């Protein structure tokens, strides 16, 4: 077996220029997949962490009725005894903290103009303790215990459409649990630029007590759970579920992936592009390698005839060609891995930025993540592709008529 592998290995280097070209092609395919996959992984990883750290958290607790709520009276389906629930789940081993929230809707008015908003009421201290980032473009964050007027942060799009800025006042109108319209005057202390223009055109944030006064309820719509690491989400979920059973209200626990619709869309888009690229590389390697291996087979016709004449089983000839192609694939993959990782390191240190993706207003840094699974997958792809490409030449070689092959010039 060792001698057989040695023969296959040496055969690869008979025509060095051709082998080098094949290795460049295979290696280029692997390196291309690694760079594209690594960039996609960086983008999705960044988007994931950004999504979580922008306030989505790792998990959220809702009442079971929350998903059938009336958007005008969101606290009708809110969590009643949320402090008790929060205290109960906070004991989990991976839990960093709990942030209560009220997601609500209403109108804002500056006296001359009104617009709909999508509001979020938060506990600034809890948000801060969970490391949630508020992308404040100008001004400051909410004061947890404001002494004077109710403070508000608004999206830059909403600020522009309402023609307001830091220090200006707005009246926030929303429907209470009783169905009455209630209002509260707020003072804008900061302008938010989350990067998602559509969101910023409607976004308003006030403190939790202010929203509860506005909506005249002590409830919250959801509790946001922050963990020590995103990788621990499944473990923490399993640990937390029993704490939510047996309560007076039926509660549901959702993982971040169930709530991150945009992330899922982007992720599946990148997966689709990567799959498409993989298919292209697969067929590119397959088609060009068939040609190369057929040329190699024709050049060695007399030698194959000699081997067959000496009694070499035809299966050995098939195996020889397939082993040669597979070894070529392995070498190409190693070359591609080395080139891909080197280029990735160079790109990572280059400080390149890509234009903002659709719906975003900030340029994205160009970085490549090292994903072991992609390295293994890309390598296997080209190795399998080359092994498949060798089938036709291998079978042809094994079926040569010995007398004719020996007479081949």
């Amino acid at each position, binding site marked *: 077996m060792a*001698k*057989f592998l040695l023969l296959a290995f040496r*055969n690869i280097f008979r025509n060095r220029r051709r082998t080098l070209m094949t290795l460049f092609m295979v290696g280029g395919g692997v390196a291309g997949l690694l760079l594209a996959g690594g960039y996609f992984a960086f983008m999705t990883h960044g988007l994931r962490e950004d999504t979580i750290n922008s306030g989505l958290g790792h998990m959220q607790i809702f009442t079971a009725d929350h998903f059938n709520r009336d958007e005008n009276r969101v606290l009708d389906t809110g969590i009643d005894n949320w402090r008790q629930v929060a205290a109960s789940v906070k004991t989990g081993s991976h839990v960093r903290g709990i942030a209560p929230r009220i997601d609500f809707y209403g109108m804002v008015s500056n006296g001359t103009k009104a617009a709909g908003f999508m509001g979020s009421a938060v506990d600034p201290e809890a948000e801060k303790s969970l490391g949630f980032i508020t992308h404040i473009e100008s001004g400051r964050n909410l004061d947890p215990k404001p002494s004077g007027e109710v403070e508000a942060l608004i999206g830059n799009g909403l600020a522009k459409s309402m023609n307001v800025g830091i220090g200006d006042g707005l009246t926030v109108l929303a429907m209470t649990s009783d169905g009455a319209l209630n209002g509260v005057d707020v003072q804008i202390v900061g302008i938010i630029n989350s990067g998602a223009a559509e969101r910023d055109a409607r976004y308003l944030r006030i403190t939790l007590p202010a929203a509860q006064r506005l909506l005249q309820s002590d409830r919250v719509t959801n509790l946001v759970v922050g963990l020590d690491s995103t990788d621990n989400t499944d473990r923490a979920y399993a640990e937390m579920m029993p704490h939510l059973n047996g309560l007076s209200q039926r509660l549901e626990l959702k993982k971040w992936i169930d709530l991150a619709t945009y992330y899922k869309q982007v992720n599946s888009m990148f997966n689709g592009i990567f799959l498409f690229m993989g298919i292209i590389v697969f067929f590119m390697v397959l088609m060009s390698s068939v040609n190369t291996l057929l040329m190699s087979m024709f050049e060695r016709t*007399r030698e194959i005839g*000699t081997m067959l*004449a000496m*009694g*070499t*089983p035809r299966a050995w000839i098939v195996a020889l060609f397939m082993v040669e192609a597979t070894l070529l694939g392995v070498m190409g993959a190693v070359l591609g891995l080395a080139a891909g990782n080197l280029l990735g390191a160079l790109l990572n240190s280059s400080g390149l930025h890509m234009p903002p993706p659709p719906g975003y207003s900030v340029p994205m840094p160009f970085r490549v993540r090292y994903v072991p699974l992609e390295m293994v997958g890309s390598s296997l792809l080209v190795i399998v592709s080359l092994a498949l490409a060798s089938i036709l030449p291998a079978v042809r070689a094994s079926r040569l008529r010995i007398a004719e092959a020996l007479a081949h010039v």
Partner: protein
Amino acid sequence: MEEIVNVEAVSRRFPLDNSPAHHPAHRFVSALTHANLRVTAGEFLAIAGPSGSGKTTLLNLIGCIDQPTTGRILVDGVDTSQLKPAGMSKLRRERIGFVFQTFNLIPVFTAAENVEYPLLIQGVSSGERRERVAQALESVGLSSRANQRPDLLSGGERQRVAVARAIVHRPALVLADEPTANLDTHNATQLIDLMHGLNRSLGLTFIFSTHDARLLEHTERIIRLTDGEVVSDTASEGGSRG
């Protein structure tokens, strides 16, 4: 004496293309016609004749790398017409050694590895392979060139490696197709002496095709072919050629 080869009324026709220009009766070319031949163990036999007389065809048929259109061939007691391709392959692997006109060594293997190859495909253990390769190379006087690749060997040395490869698995029969055709007089003479010596010392049966008078001079039995027919056999003429 034990019979190694028995060629019984063997003909070999090759198809021409199916062009309508050819009359059905002329769509085949006859390379060998009704050939009969018996070879006993230890013979040193030459098949002679001009180019196109059917020498290579007869050797290919005896060597089980081609099959007769009619007739049958027994090699070492085995009726080759009854064998399937795998059986033919096994027979070649175990009972026949080949020497080719153009040496046909595997260029990426060293001389020793080339000689080792027939043992490798027979599944002989590495220790025994090493020992037998050393013996075979020694018997052809190339022990010192064992680790050279064919491109660094002279034509004569390459053909001696080919002879070592043909005998290393101790076959019943060695077939050589024009073994001296690509050699100069000096190397041809050395090769002839070598093959003759192996024939005598090991009792190996050699059948070779040639039109090299130098080789024919050393041959006890000569079969002459003309236009695919055996026209003379010095054995049936009552002894060796003078």
